[in-house]
């Protein structure tokens, strides 16, 4: 399935540097409409105001973690079909399994490179 490069993407991370990195990588892949949020609750508020084609989220944030955000999104009938990729330094098996059970589409372990991000986005939209 061809990816719609005009779809809005929401990047969720409490580090501005990481948001900037991901935004630049997405721009290189052709995605220009990129919003950001600093934690799960801010992201949820944005998602309830605008339809996003993809959410790329960190895990460890306060007050709401990316894991909680994922569960909120999957539990909301209006949002639960939103593709969701976790990009995080949480690299224990229990985290990956928990995210998968909660309905994450893909999981990227930090540090990562542009090719990995590209591959995972393509994998999500080929499902």
């Amino acid at each position, binding site marked *: 399935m061809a990816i719609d490069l005009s779809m809005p993407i929401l990047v969720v991370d409490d580090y501005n540097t990481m948001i900037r990195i991901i935004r*630049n990588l997405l721009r290189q892949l052709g995605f220009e409409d990129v919003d950001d949020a600093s934690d799960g609750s801010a992201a949820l508020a944005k998602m309830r105001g605008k339809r996003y084609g993809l959410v790329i989220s960190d895990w460890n944030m306060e007050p709401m973690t990316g894991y*909680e955000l994922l569960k909120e999104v999957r539990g909301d009938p209006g949002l639960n079909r939103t593709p969701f990729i976790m990009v995080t330094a949480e690299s224990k*098996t229990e985290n990956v399994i928990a995210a998968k059970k909660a309905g994450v589409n893909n999981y990227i372990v930090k540090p990562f490179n542009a090719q990995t991000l590209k591959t995972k986005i393509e994998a999500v939209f080929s499902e």
Partner: protein
Amino acid sequence: MADTQHLNRIVSYLKETRAQNVALSDVVALAEVTAESLQTFFETLDTTLYRELRDIAVYIDEMKAEIGALQANELKESRIPAAGQELGAIVKATEAATNTIMECAEAVMAADVRDPAAYKTLVDGQMMRVFEACSFQDITGQRIAKVVETLQHIEQRVARFVEAMRAKDLSGFVDDHERNRAERKNKFMLNGPASDGEGIGQAQVDQLFAPARR
């Protein structure tokens, strides 16, 4: 033998006076006899008690000395805040360097390539900025060394204290804040970046996702 004699005297006196009215002077006399008979007992008790209290006093003095050696006030008011400031400075420095490097990358990527000479000049200039920005590593390395030294200092003092006091850990949390943080960390699996050999790599993550992609 002296204790028994005194007690016998008490018993004899009571037997003699039981049928008679007891005068105040009799009571005083009885009290004196009783006190005399117990004197030896109290002398023994005093010595034992004194020894134990003295041992406790010595232990308290030793504990106070070890607490003093811990230099907890110096740690709390000086070393630990200083380490915190160093870490804060490290975060700022790495953030500033990262932003500079990304600005340079963005400038190069957005540059007009139609004029090769101008493009080369721009790229050379931006790359020099990148090299300059990378000098953060030298400063942050020195700051990290200072923090590590503080941690080692604390570790040595705490280890000495624990050994001297033969301290044992109590279970549970110091306060509700600590408990809440621990519960949150556990509930949401907030482990942070893994140490070498602890986490799994992207290839293993992909394997965990492979069945779902069928």
